[in-house]
């Protein structure tokens, strides 16, 4: 067993969530019955999140970030592996325990308008989760007002009767955040929470999330495409590629000393003077994104890797190495 793996096991004691060799595959069928294979959106992911930390997941489009988030939320059944949350294995949760679990994990989506039912006003939107969890009327009212204050929609009375279409994008996202917080979760998962917002409010919303995370001491896991802001809002970064985590480290460490060739390519693109490239990681690095149906053998990055070692990288699946203290990278160059 590598050193990295033992570090992860040692930390598991205090961690809030521990993900073990998680796989989420989507079966692809033709005409409803002919199996074409599986899209391996999450394919062997392990990590642990500590209480009160903020982590960012980055990676190009289609690498499985949202699928990982949904699996953590219990929206997808994991094909293999397990998620251990507060010491409890998710695979073994019964119906009721699953509902309690859902209260412990909040979800902030990408498209704030789509995330809010258009036919309910803010009060009813925020009351819904509380009703589902059987919380009484007066307590509901109290919590709705408190959480609206917390996301800076105040005075609350100005917003309670508004419908989503009457709010700006930023305000809508605040309502989404309020809804995610209202059940007092210990883990908040935000899937590209600002990518659909106006540039002017992005930092505001990220600051809000960061503030709430620090005040409530909750664990925040957010997915982003924007490496330029990540250093201000995350403690750690996970870099994903083709359904796997290829590199993990503290923010500063990772940005200053990227170890994995994929991360290096990402950061090189960020330094690109062309601002169009800087903000959009979807296009880099060059070459086609890997097929998740038939991922490349060996290192999944090898068809695009500038440092690719023929005869090694296309055969051997790289395990996690720890080239620098607390810095994990899955590349055979570190051997």
């Amino acid at each position, binding site marked *: 067993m590598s050193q990295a793996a033992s570090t992860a096991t040692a930390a598991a004691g205090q961690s809030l969530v521990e993900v073990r060799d998680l796989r989420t595959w989507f079966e692809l069928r033709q005409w409803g019955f002919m199996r074409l294979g599986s899209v391996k959106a999450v394919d062997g992911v392990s990590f642990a999140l500590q209480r009160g930390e903020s982590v960012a997941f980055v990676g190009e489009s289609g690498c499985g970030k949202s699928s990982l988030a949904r699996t953590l939320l219990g929206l997808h059944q994991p094909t293999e592996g397990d998620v251990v949350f507060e010491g409890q294995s998710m695979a073994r949760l019964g119906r009721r325990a699953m509902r309690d679990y859902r209260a412990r994990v909040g*979800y902030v989506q*990408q498209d704030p308008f789509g995330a809010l039912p258009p036919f309910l006003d803010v009060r009813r939107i925020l009351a*819904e989760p509380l009703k589902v969890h059987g919380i009484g009327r007066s307590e509901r009212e109290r919590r709705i007002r408190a959480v609206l204050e917390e996301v800076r929609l105040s005075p609350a009375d100005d917003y309670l*009767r508004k*419908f989503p279409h009457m709010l700006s994008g930023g305000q809508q996202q605040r309502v989404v955040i309020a809804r995610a917080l209202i059940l007092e979760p210990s883990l908040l998962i935000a899937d590209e929470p600002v990518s659909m917002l106006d540039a002017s409010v992005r930092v505001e919303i990220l600051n809000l999330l960061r503030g709430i995370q620090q005040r409530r001491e909750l664990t925040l896991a957010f997915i982003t495409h924007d490496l330029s802001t990540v250093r201000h809002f995350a403690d750690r970064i996970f870099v994903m590629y083709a359904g796997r985590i290829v590199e993990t480290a503290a923010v500063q460490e990772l940005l200053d000393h990227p170890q994995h060739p994929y991360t290096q390519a990402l950061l090189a693109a960020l330094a690109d003077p062309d601002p169009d490239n800087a903000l959009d990681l979807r296009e880099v690095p060059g070459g086609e994104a890997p097929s998740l149906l038939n991922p490349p053998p060996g290192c999944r990055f090898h068809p695009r890797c500038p440092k690719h070692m023929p005869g090694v990288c296309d055969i051997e699946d790289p395990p996690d190495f720890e080239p620098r203290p607390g810095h994990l990278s899955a590349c055979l160059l570190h051997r």
Partner: protein
Amino acid sequence: MGRLSSALAELRNYPSAIIGLGIIAFLVGLAVYTVVVIPYDDALDKWRGGDQWRLYPVNASPVWSDRLLGGQAPETKVVSSRDAEIEREAFEGGERLSIPLRVDFQAGDFPSEMTVFFDADGHEREPFARLVWRTPDGREMPLGGSRISRQDRMSISQDRALEQRLGLVPHIGLLATPDSEPGDARVQTGEYELTLDVIVFEENADFEAELVLYGRVHGLAGTDHQRRDLMVALMWGTPVALAFGLLAAVGTTITTLIIAATGVWFGGWVDATIQRLTEVNMILPLLPILVMVGTLYSTSIWLMLGVVVALGIFSAGIKMYRAMLLPIRQAPYIEAARAYGAGNTRIILRYMIPRILPVLIPTFVTLIPTFVFLEASLAVLGLGDPVLPTWGKVLNDAQSESALYSQYYYWVLSPAFLLMLTGLGFAMLGFALDRIFNPRLRTL
């Protein structure tokens, strides 16, 4: 529902919606008024027909239609002995009464029928009455005499002997000018008198008589072949039609919606089963099944409603709703609801269905009259409710009595008008609602 109320406020900008709403309000008002004024049991009792209608003419047109065409057809006139100055003359073992029944007849047309009703209660020996008719110009015509049993009637119109004598049907001949010929009889206006010479063989026993000159026009709606005032059916048809249309529309829409949403939400075999059931149901013809149920089992309107709703559950609407619900199933807000723990029932009823409800309102409004027409069609086919007075039943009677052939146009036109008015009202409102809601389809 802020969006809904703003949409309703927008209705004010559509004249067709205002007219439609006006018509619907009128129909609803009429329905409520009817139910209050003629309670359900009364309506059924009246529609059963029989002796309660004996003072009403057969197949009389509405008064207004005659007057509009410049006619002066008579309305029914009833003269009772109670208002007459009776001369009494006692004799050994009885009494002789002379009862003058006077009628001031000023109409431009002859009555449709003439009958005298007698009420001679408590006589041991039956009284004897002789009738004499006096015209305004002083002619006297004896109408014969007969023994009067307890509840008797003398149908003067059907007196064949009198008809022979007059050369004209009695109710025409008796009121015609002296020079009248068959085919060209003119009314002689003025005061007529029917004198009853009655011999009763007891003292203090009742004897009453009523002369009825049946009119050719009656009330607002006219009467049918059973002398029933059509107003009863036209009025009562309103609540029945509205209730049937509304319940059938609500029943089918709601059940279909819930089933479509359930199929879409669960997907897989649930969806497949619903789809196949719908396809089978779509080729089942509704009307023949209703006819079969009506013929073999019962034509109760509530049973028909049940069958309509039951067959409507897996109707073609499911396909449409399914297409509308499929994208909603993927909506992020539904995913969010799952993430905070909402169950299947909540997602289907609270998050999926309300989303498409506004779009369905116009369809729903226009659906109501189709069920009203369905109910009327069943009645016209002879499968109307056996006891309830409805528009369709009136049409059915009219058809079986060949009303159009006999030129009783009112009999067909008034229920048809009310049916069309219902269709028009809901359609106008529905189309306006469609114009209001459908531009929003894009933003939905």
